[in-house]
């Protein structure tokens, strides 16, 4: 295998290929940073050109865009509390809080380093143990998927310490919102109140950006609601004074701080790599699950949600660690496990390579060159990110008076651009109102988003299991993997309830 990698390096490290990787990463970071736009859109637009490029160059460009986009999403999440991509939703929880405390540079650097570490781990797994991991991923059928979804929901909902009931309640709201649209089994419309625009359900991007970003914009900008948001306005005033005196030299990520985030980064890398290899599970789930587990195993779990660098590191590493492993089902069985993998699959097809078990054996050299490019793109991401972050940190500290309208407009334009849908813009605004309401009643927002993201998958998996089991609930505990997840969920709850009791 190593000699194959050396052979492929002539192809992978051709100057033009390196140039395309560089271009791709730059484009990806920029697009990822704009809410609503993502690397996926750029990849879709560039698909026909893939046919005219040398495969190694085309791969370099697409890989660069993909990796840059994964990290870029965290820039807007940290700077403005707007997840630039769905995967960055978990990053925004602590990232934005850290920025509000005047530490955008620390937060952004943590995100960059954890993103690169998570991503590299995942790439190495893809290169060296793709086949065994793919076999494990196949053992996940509907029954196992439902157990996984249930486990992650319990994990996240129970996160918000002292607010478990509220956490579960908003998670339920998220699942309810996700049920609008088409019934996944019969295809019938439901909960649409007769509005044809809702018959396909609410899209993820407007809900996500609405809940996080629009609610933030409204809270910061609203004078009419001043009395109600008095407490929040005090924070804004405090923050404004912070912005005045922002000195980037005082906001450097120190070595001990970096080292303290490493455990969270490793948890994220492991969880992200595994979740990424499961077809259909997705980056957002990986990020939230990493975040939940990192908090459970942290020495300072109370800082999570208040600007914890560990929180940022786990979420961002979990999100980026799906990057390499999402290709595992594609390479092993030709199954695109995510939207990005589907686009890469299409690119392979246009280059005359059929995704699937014969992909590697038929195109050994180019696939190994792709492996090298995956790793190299992480380096470019690191260097380019390092160079750009000081500028992004300063942008993050621009006065809200200028920032709020800009974020608002970007959110609307980006939402429209994601699906070319006006309905989505309305959903965005309504989600914003919902976000403001929930925040005023001090509900945590993360469980809602997770409920919304995994609701459809969980429902589908549950109902598929029931169909396969002929309507008998006991089908849910016929799989050892599923039983394992249920036991782990109960153990976690028990463990931390006891730990909480011991503390008080």
């Amino acid at each position: 295998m190593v000699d194959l990698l050396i052979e492929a390096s002539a192809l992978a490290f051709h100057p033009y290929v390196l140039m395309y990787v560089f271009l791709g990463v730059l484009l990806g970071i920029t697009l990822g940073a704009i809410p609503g736009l993502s690397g996926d859109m750029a990849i879709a637009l560039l698909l026909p050109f893939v046919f005219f490029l040398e495969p190694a160059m085309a791969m370099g460009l697409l890989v660069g865009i993909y990796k840059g986009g994964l990290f870029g999403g965290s820039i807007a999440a940290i700077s403005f509390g707007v997840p630039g991509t769905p995967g960055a939703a978990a990053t925004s929880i602590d990232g934005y809080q850290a920025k509000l405390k005047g530490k955008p540079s620390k937060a952004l650097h943590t995100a960059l380093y954890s993103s690169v570490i998570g991503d590299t781990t995942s790439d190495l797994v893809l290169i060296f143990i793709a086949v065994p991991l793919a076999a494990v991923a196949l053992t996940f059928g509907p029954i196992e998927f439902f157990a996984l979804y249930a486990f992650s929901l319990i994990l996240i909902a129970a996160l918000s310490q002292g607010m478990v009931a509220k956490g579960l309640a908003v998670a339920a709201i998220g699942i309810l919102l996700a049920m609008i649209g088409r019934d996944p089994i019969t295809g019938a419309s439901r909960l649409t109140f007769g509005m044809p625009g809702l018959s396909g359900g609410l899209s993820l991007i407007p809900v996500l950006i609405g809940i996080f970003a629009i609610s933030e914009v409204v809270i910061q900008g609203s004078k009419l609601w001043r009395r109600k948001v008095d407490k929040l306005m005090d924070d804004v005033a405090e923050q404004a004074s912070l912005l005045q005196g922002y000195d980037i030299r005082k906001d450097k990520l120190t070595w001990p701080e970096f080292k303290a985030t490493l455990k969270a980064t490793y948890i994220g890398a492991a969880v992200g790599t595994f979740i990424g290899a499961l077809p259909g599970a997705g980056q957002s789930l990986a990020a939230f699950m990493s975040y939940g587990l990192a908090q459970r195993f942290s020495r300072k779990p109370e800082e999570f949600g208040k600007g914890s660098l560990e929180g940022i590191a786990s979420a961002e590493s979990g999100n980026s660690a799906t990057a390499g492993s999402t290709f595992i089902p594609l390479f092993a069985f030709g199954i695109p496990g995510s939207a990005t993998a589907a686009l890469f699959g299409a690119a392979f097809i246009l280059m005359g390579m059929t995704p699937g078990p014969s992909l590697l054996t038929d195109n050994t050299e180019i696939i190994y060159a792709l492996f090298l490019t995956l790793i190299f793109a992480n380096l470019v991401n690191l260097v380019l990110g390092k160079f750009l972050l000081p500028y992004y940190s300063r942008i993050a500290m621009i006065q809200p008076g200028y920032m709020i309208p800009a974020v608002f407009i970007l959110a609307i334009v980006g939402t429209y651009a994601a699906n070319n849908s006006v309905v989505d813009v309305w959903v965005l605004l309504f989600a914003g109102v919902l976000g403001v309401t929930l925040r005023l009643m001090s509900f945590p927002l993360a469980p809602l988003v997770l409920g919304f993201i995994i609701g459809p998958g969980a429902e589908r998996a549950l109902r598929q299991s029931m169909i396969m089991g002929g309507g008998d609930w006991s089908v849910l505990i016929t799989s050892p993997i599923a039983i394992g997840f249920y036991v782990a969920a109960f153990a976690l709850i028990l463990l931390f309830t006891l730990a909480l009791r011991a503390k008080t």
Partner: protein
Amino acid sequence: MTLPYAKTALASAVLALSAGAALASDGPSLGSDPIRIVMPYGAGGSTDITARIIAANAAEHCGTRIDVVSMPGAGGMEGLQFVADAEPDGHTILMADYSATITQTLTEDTPWEVEDWAPIVHLTDWKPTVYVKADHDIQSIDDWIEMAEANPGSLVFGHADPLSLVHLPLVLLEQETGIENVHLPTTGGGETRTMILGGHIDLGMTLPPSIVSNVNSGEVTAIGVFADERSDVLPDVPTFQEAGYDVSFEAPLLVYTFGTVPDEIQQQLSECIMTGLASDTAQAMGQQASAGLENVQGRDSARAVYEATTERVRDVVASLDLD
């Protein structure tokens, strides 16, 4: 200093405009605004690849840029709505299989009728194919029918959305043979394949190009094709007709305009897309993607196959007890 240049530019613009007007005077015609191909599916699938091959090759023949717009919203209905609402000038066209334009229109409350869509290019016919895991007891059409007759309702069959082009053939076969299977809807071909390979379900249906690689590597066996003739990419797999079951349900992939677009523009679009697809580059791209673009047909064929498919879907839907 800049004024004379501005004047020249203006003059040439006026000239160009009048020339355009002169050309256009003998009937409605495509202008130079970009054309949008709306595709009611997500990016990266077979339809998307084909749409992008058209965009890359037909632009020079249609005289303007072609953009591909993916509008999967509202189960694809948003894309159809967008095309239906657009100015009827031929600059917003639709590319879809029959489930969007025919099945959904017949089974749901839509603001248009099946006849409101004007098919202008018949790109290819997809052949729905049934497959199983290579070590499954079922390895042929006859195995399947026998086992299903021996234990009705015991075999789980994964298909994409209900009534989609990889589900209707199963419904027809069950009506023809009287066998019963458990119908399991999935998110699409990828999820069906995962469940088959993981041994979670017994049978699945998909389109040949997506399983060729798995068939060749011996992971899955394709047991039968719902088509009049075998698939080019899976030449060893028999059709259901060969096995003695008279069920065939090919799925045409068509380009449409909305019916209100003038006839001349429909003709012009149909011709420029076909010319573009006949080019060497387009054919080479189609070959690599197994898109089946070797025998692209114009409006007559598109209309005929659209009408025939509508009749068949109408029959199946009528025979189902939909509420």
